[in-house]
């Protein structure tokens, strides 16, 4: 066992720390999408290779060699400094990797550079009112009419649809094919006639989500990634990317550090919360789990570097990472008691109200990106080799 990254990486880490300290003031705080501070921070990070590091220069990335340890160090250091790393969002975290893997050369050149620069914002059109956990049963249709797809149907849980320039969207193009083989992956502009967006306010009261309705939306036929009917395969290439990024242990570790401070500040009666053995025990329980997931992450990294098997540690990370984070945020609220209820534009907030916000937000993440229950299906079937649920059809429901 050797947990050192080696001297060249120690240097790299130190340079990054210096960079963050030097530029900390330029880091955007809650800057709107496409705003100048957000774009110039992104530009600075790409220049220095702290985001879009391995994406080729011709597509607007930094053009660095793949290096898992550098990527790890970047994640660790930005989380540690509590300074935003590069831009996220579904365009950058999901569409760009997909296009790099499966897009045409023309699509890469057209879409990746403005997306990375923060000038082109995307939303993801996957889930539908009747296609959630069973995503492959989606019904939004696209029929070819001349040189155009004509799209009808609706999507739900569409984050940032109201701000997005484009959508990457799963549609049914082969209605007679088996459900997984009848789907295609289309890209189109959100200002195309026939698109209606209705905000869907979530429990945090932030307008994070939308419903999106398509009525005879006409899209040039070449705006497809992969071939007709391959959309399920294309989408799954990036669902993996999303799952890996939910419940990031480095971010959880930063929250843990802050939680300990908070518990030293808050009091109950005349006692600091940290001095109360009941709260302290809960904190220690959570700390052990935060550590466990951090080392689990290290184990996944190590397995990638050394080509060893870490299927199970990877499969459990979304399930455990999101559940743990929700619990950690909940402990902070309990530590504050009634103060923990403060929300919105309240002068009584602690930490800008982030604990309530994240407590609720992570409940959303427990559900989104494959619910905890779906994760347990995956772990038991692919990790433990247990059989799938039998198909529900007439022959199994008949009584003899």
């Amino acid at each position, binding site marked *: 066992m050797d947990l050192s990254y080696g001297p060249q990486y120690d240097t790299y880490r130190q340079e990054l720390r210096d960079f963050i300290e030097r530029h900390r003031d330029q880091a955007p705080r809650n800057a709107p999408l496409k705003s100048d501070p957000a774009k110039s921070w992104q530009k600075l990070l790409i220049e220095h290779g702290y985001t879009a590091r391995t994406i080729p220069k011709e597509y607007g990335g930094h053009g660095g060699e793949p290096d898992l340890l550098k990527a790890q160090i970047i994640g660790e250091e930005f989380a540690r400094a509590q300074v935003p790393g590069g831009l996220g969002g579904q365009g950058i975290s999901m569409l760009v990797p997909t296009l790099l893997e499966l897009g045409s050369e023309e699509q890469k050149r057209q879409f990746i550079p403005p997306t990375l620069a923060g000038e082109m914002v995307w939303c993801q059109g996957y889930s539908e009112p009747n296609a959630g956990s069973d995503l492959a049963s989606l019904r939004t249709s696209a029929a070819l009419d001349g040189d155009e797809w004509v799209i009808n149907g609706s999507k739900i849980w569409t984050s940032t649809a109201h701000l997005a320039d484009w959508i990457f969207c799963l549609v049914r193009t082969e209605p007679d094919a088996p459900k997984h083989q009848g789907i295609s992956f289309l890209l189109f502009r959100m200002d195309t006639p026939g698109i209606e967006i209705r905000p869907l306010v979530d429990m945090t009261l932030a307008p994070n989500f939308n419903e999106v309705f398509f009525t005879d939306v006409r899209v040039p036929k070449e705006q497809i990634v992969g071939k007709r009917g391959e959309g399920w395969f294309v989408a799954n290439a990036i669902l993996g990317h999303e799952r890996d990024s939910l419940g990031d242990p480095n971010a959880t570790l930063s929250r843990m550090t802050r939680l300990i401070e908070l518990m030293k500040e808050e009091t109950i009666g005349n006692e600091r919360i940290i001095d109360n053995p009941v709260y302290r025990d809960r904190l220690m329980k959570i700390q052990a789990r935060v550590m466990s997931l951090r080392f*689990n992450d290290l184990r996944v990294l190590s397995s990638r570097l050394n080509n060893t098997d870490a299927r199970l540690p990877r499969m459990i990370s979304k399930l455990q990472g999101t559940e743990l984070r929700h619990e950690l945020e909940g402990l902070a609220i309990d530590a504050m008691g009634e103060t923990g209820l403060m929300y919105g534009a309240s002068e009584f907030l602690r930490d800008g109200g982030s604990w309530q916000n994240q407590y609720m937000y992570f409940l959303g993440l427990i559900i989104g990106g494959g619910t905890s229950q779906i994760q347990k299906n995956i772990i038991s079937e692919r990790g433990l080799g247990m059989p799938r649920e039998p198909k529900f059809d007439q022959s199994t429901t008949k009584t003899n």
Partner: protein
Amino acid sequence: MDFGLSELQLSMQENVNRFLDEEASLDRVREFAASDHSLAEDIWTGLVNLGVVGVLVPEQYGGLGLSAMDAAVIGECLGNHVTPVPYLSTCVVAPRAIALAGSDAQKDEYLPKIADGSKTIGLALSEACAARGKNGASVRDGKLTGTVSFVSDPHADYWLLADRDRNLHVIAQGAQHLEVKVMPQVDRTRPLCELTLSDTPCDSLTNDGANVLERVLDVAWTTLAFDTLGAAQSMLDQAVEYAMNREQFNRVIASFQAVKHMCAEMAAEIEPSRSLLWYAGYALDEASDDAHLHACHAKAHMAEVGTFVARTATVVHGGMGFTDLLGLHYWFKRIGFNRQYLGGPEWLREQAAIAQNLAA
């Protein structure tokens, strides 16, 4: 950067597991449980031949001189097979304590006998961590007086005892004024006893007992956590196998989501714990500043996960899990023993808080 078991550790585990599969089956464990709990000579001799018994004894005394992490991953195999041998005491804690706190003469006296398997050493350390009741032993004129409980291995040749001042001593079986009373308990793979001492002769380890005690307890906690990890993994494996074979409603019960999700939850708890334990073992060997903190967390957290797995895996087996017929309860009780022995999770979490200056 390599966060995983070494080739050597993997091959040691393979060898130990193969031996235990063949020579320390559940039938053999049952035999031990029904016996007077004297040493299982056949299993012990096999472990001596594999070098397991001398894993932590320095090479100059005839052992392998390996690391705490190496010893812990062997402990994982023994937990996996609920093996009834005095491994934690004789092979891990005693050689560590004697190597650190013993004089040269004491090392010459004990370490070779540990390495060749000819003598066993039990542990009388429970009064030094999370002590229950008012028991304890004190030194007067170089002799020990008092009562110590939850002492491992009633048939051991010696015991390693921590007195009220946290200094360490070796007491011999059959010493003058020594009474040994068995304490029947739920896990019959690791027998316990109570020692009553009245001016009982002892061999006091001469070098700084208290500081050494802290260090050997970290090793003990980590090794116990690995024992639970092995036992928990076995329970999950047995649960999945049972569910794949047991049919109800014309299907194997492994195809029911209720059963699958219980198994997924067990795996989801075990895997991150494994990573935590690996780090705890690594930190011990590196003597890093956070070794004590991680040893506390490893034992406490693994105890919680172990308890969850023990009850869940039993439930997956339905009524059979509750019977003696299947013997699943040997693992259930092994995990239960490891949870309480040398400090339960609540006490250890408090030690973790103290280690971070979050509690006094």
